[in-house]
């Protein structure tokens, strides 16, 4: 009896040693980095309808501001893991699918226009901020609307399930505006509703509004007006409890902010919607330039 117990005990101790020794030789990789090393693939989840951040280009490949940043992260992963033949795959996601697909391992990071919020942090983790925007109002110039207070009793659209809708409902209540909210399904619908005079304004992130105007048939008839109604820091989404991967991603961001590559990426994409780099945004980003 006694002997058998000792035998089992030493077997367990042996197994524990074997496991620790094994992980030590694999440089204690865990989480996303381990998954990438084992599978030889990094899978980038991205939006398909959010230019200039993430959309499909003429060649059918995803492109945009967020995609460029994620590609830099993929390069850094390649260098870190010393994997010359790392495959980079892309997988389209949307607001409903991004969490489940990230959590179940279908994608390794999500490059879109996701606002970092504390409630979302209960389910996923975010890299440092890569862009800052906020809600403003998209209106027809002829309407004469200047601020949200001018919308008393009017019809305003915001997309279902977005932080924009949340902000609109809160302001509507707090300022007692009596706005009729139309919950549109996506940006094109919000645009049609405004274009056909079904609504008086569409509310979404400022930068998205400039993108919509840039794409429209007569851009000179529309304007983005009013003060910033919210603060929306965009960030790349990763899985929780994965500090090694997060730290690697944040290092890539800090380097981009430091060496000026970030400004090039910004200009490359934001010039397509006529948005010059503001000193405020530049300052915000330079504050995340943590030293090595």
């Amino acid at each position, binding site marked *: 009896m006694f002997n058998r117990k000792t035998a089992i005990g030493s077997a367990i101790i042996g197994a524990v040693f074997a496991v620790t020794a094994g992980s030590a030789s694999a440089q204690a990789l865990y989480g996303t980095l381990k998954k990438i090393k084992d599978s030889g693939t990094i899978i980038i989840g991205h939006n398909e309808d959010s230019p200039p951040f993430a959309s499909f280009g003429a060649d059918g490949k995803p492109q945009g501001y967020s995609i460029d940043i994620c590609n830099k992260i993929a390069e850094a992963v390649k260098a870190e893991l010393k994997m010359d033949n790392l495959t980079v795959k892309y997988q389209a996601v949307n607001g409903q699918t991004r969490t489940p697909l990230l959590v179940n391992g279908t994608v390794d990071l999500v490059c879109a226009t996701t606002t970092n919020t504390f409630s979302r942090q*209960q389910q996923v983790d975010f890299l440092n901020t890569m862009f800052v925007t906020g809600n403003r109002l998209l209106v027809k110039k002829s309407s004469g609307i200047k601020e949200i207070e001018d919308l008393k009793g009017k019809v305003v659209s915001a997309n279902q399930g977005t932080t924009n809708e949340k902000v609109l409902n809160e302001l509507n209540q707090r300022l007692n505006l009596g706005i009729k909210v139309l919950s549109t399904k996506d940006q094109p619908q919000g645009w049609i509703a405004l274009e056909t005079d*079904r609504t008086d304004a569409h509310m979404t992130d400022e930068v998205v509004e400039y993108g919509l105007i840039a794409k429209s048939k007569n851009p000179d008839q529309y304007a983005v007006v009013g003060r910033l109604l919210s603060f929306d820091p965009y960030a790349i989404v990763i899985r929780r409890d994965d500090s090694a991967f997060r730290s690697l991603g944040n290092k890539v961001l800090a380097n981009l902010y430091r060496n000026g590559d970030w400004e090039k990426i910004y200009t490359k994409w934001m010039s397509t919607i006529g948005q010059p780099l503001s000193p405020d945004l530049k300052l915000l980003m330079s504050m995340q330039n943590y030293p090595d």
Partner: protein
Amino acid sequence: MRYNWNWSVLFADPYLGWILTGLGWTVLVSLCAWIIGLALGSVIGTMRTLPSPVARAIGSAYVEVFRNIPLLVQIFLFYFVLPELLPREWGRWLKRDLPHPEFTVAVVSLGLYTACRVAEQVRAGIATAGRGQASAGLATGLTLTQVYRLILLPLAFRLTIPALTNEFLNVFKNSSLALTIGVLELTARTRAVADYTYQSIEAFVVASVIYASISFLIAFIMRRVEERARLPGTLGTGAR
């Protein structure tokens, strides 16, 4: 899978309220659309069996048009395109002054679409009830209206209860398309819960469970109706 389960989010304020009001809109849209669909569908289906070629042509045209265009496209056409084709003031009235424009458009388009499907079931029911019954009725001196009212329709509706149950279930499930024009029904609300909380799996599970429960309930009630309405000795009831 490192998913952070949190079922309690479904019962937290304001999400529980959203799901319940969403359910309310789903039921309201479905019931209103079903009333339109059943009433109009019965008329169109009957028209397709009448001797008059004009009535038949109108009935067939209706069914072919509404059956062959996807419901989602129909909803879009009614909501976005129709107001632009009408005179300016009418279009403006539809877009701005119509009470609950999204709800109304959703109910009307879903109702018109359901009508074409109900019509086909009713037509099939009348056909199954049989030419013989109609001829016999006419031979005994009943008018055509009386033949329909007293013989064909009562038989046809009894025969089509199972098929109509199916259509009723479809209305409930199709009502989720109303979210595409901004009716915040059950699917839209659960999607919003998923987007706000990131607890997507819980939100979609609850939506699935609610839809399935409604369907079971409808199927159960309709089976009772079928049993109550059964006529001994007629088609489909066997030798009971």
